[in-house]
């Protein structure tokens, strides 16, 4: 159960800037040398968005990019925690715990990188994939397929196109890109030298595992789960895997689609 990476730390960090992407999504840049220099794609931070005792728990948000002593997060407003992020301005302080977990690279252990990687994401699941694309280098990225729910996500879609030139874009209602899901942008057969790295809603990841029943070992998914501690302590975030319960926060959040026992849990 001991975690390979190093345990996260808590920082009182300053907001370096933010950018609204429309309809409750946005980017937030935070000054934190330690996290920015150590984070890898797929890792995340726990952000305490308030300035007081409530909301009580941190909110898990993936690291979407790093540059210099700054890291960025991509958020979507879901409830009161993320709502508080919208009003953050440069200079505001923010308590963050991180970087947390095994990302797309460290979760491989000694396994070499594949020749090609297909990136597949749903809405803000784009965050770790963007970071992964940067680290992989565009030459290795065989394709990017992204899905959003549709109307209201136009601003976000623009940002996706900016961030992933050539992205295949899908939406549930067809109002943005092609009607369909991120899965529709993926090949029927997964080429032997290729892996899929994915992040998005559980339903999408489940469908992805179902689409390639034979190739699940070559699919890496960054999972979500309700979390209290983000340090492996509470056992609140476990998911059932072939090796028993595993903590999404520090044993993951990146797992292979093969490890995860998709049928034994529902959101």
């Amino acid at each position: 159960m001991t975690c390979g990476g190093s345990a996260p730390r808590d920082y009182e960090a300053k907001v370096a800037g933010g950018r609204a992407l429309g309809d409750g999504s946005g980017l937030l840049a935070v000054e934190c040398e330690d996290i920015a220099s150590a984070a890898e794609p797929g890792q995340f931070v726990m952000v305490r968005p308030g300035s007081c005792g409530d909301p009580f728990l941190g909110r898990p948000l993936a690291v979407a990019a790093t540059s210099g002593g700054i890291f960025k997060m991509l958020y979507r407003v879901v409830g009161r925690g993320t709502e508080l992020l919208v009003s953050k301005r440069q200079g505001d302080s923010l308590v963050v715990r991180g970087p947390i977990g095994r990302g797309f690279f460290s979760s491989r252990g000694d396994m070499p990188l594949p020749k090609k990687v297909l990136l597949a994401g749903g809405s803000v699941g784009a965050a770790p994939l963007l970071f992964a694309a940067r680290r992989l280098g565009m030459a290795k990225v065989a394709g990017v397929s992204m899905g959003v729910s549709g109307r209201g996500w136009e601003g976000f879609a623009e940002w996706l196109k900016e961030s992933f030139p050539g992205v295949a874009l899908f939406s549930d209602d067809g109002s943005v890109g092609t009607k369909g899901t991120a899965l529709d942008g993926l090949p029927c057969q997964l080429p032997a030298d290729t892996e899929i790295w994915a992040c998005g809603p559980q339903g999408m990841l489940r469908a992805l595992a179902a689409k390639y029943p034979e190739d699940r070992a070559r699919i890496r998914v960054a999972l979500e789960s309700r979390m209290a501690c983000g340090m492996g302590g509470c056992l609140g975030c476990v998911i059932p895997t072939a090796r028993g319960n595993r903590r999404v926060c520090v044993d993951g959040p990146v797992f292979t689609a093969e490890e995860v026992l998709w049928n034994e849990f529902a959101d």
Partner: protein
Amino acid sequence: MSSRTEMHVSIGGLNLESPVIIASGVWPYEAELWSPERLEGVGALCTKAVSLNGRAGNKGVRVWETPCGMLNSIGLQNGGVRSFLDDYLPLVRGAYRPFLVNLVMESEREVRESIAALAEIPGIPAIELNISCPNVDGDGMAWGISAESAAKAVRIARSEWKGALWVKLTPQSPDLAGVAKAAEAEGADALVCGNTWLGMAMDIKKKRPVFQRVVAGLSGPAVFPLALRTVWQVCGAVKLPVIGCGGVASWEDATAMLLAGASAVEVGSALFTDFDLPRKIVAGLSTYLAEQKIDTVSGLTGLGRHE
């Protein structure tokens, strides 16, 4: 900041460098987090719950945020006492601090077997007996609900265990003072007051309870006023040292617990948002002692009871 002797407390068979103890179920067995640097201010640690055999824990949602607190329904997930001894004990020992094995009070047979396994290994300083779980031999009510069943639980554990024995009470007991006295009479060395408070949450989108078992344990700052009241009551009922636990999230909270009669505090959920809390509590206590012109932290115990 604080001299060693100032923060030293000696409770129920253990000598602690500070009165701040990490509560059971919150600190992971991650090597780095057991290094001295990451445990500044920590006087002792409680392990996660250990039961005789491994338990998978509960399915479904396990944690849920509430106003200034959280509910959990982990379900005592652990690998069993053997796995604890083999896989984690070396790590726990490496912290060079007193520690308590949080032992689930199961059936009489199981708990005797667990203790026997622990007793075989030299150098385990203390057991924290968790009597919040249902008495499967008895009526299914938690061992800690009535004075009689609590007495029986402590008697069993005491007869098997020679080291320090702390008993962790459950606030669900309608007769906390009676339970505390029973534990004292049966030879407990200290009482931890207490565990989580029975609550629940509803998922209004799914129109069903959030947790598969419907109810779950409430912890965090929200419960502090309730926990402080139980500490006050239990300290009035027994002579044993009492460790305050429930919602402690600042040095002020820890001070309040001590003034109410506690000899130390356990911190749980607040570590989920602040690794550094034990150090901050110690620093705050130290400043407070200086202001109040009190020499040692043990001098605070019960000082708020004399009006």
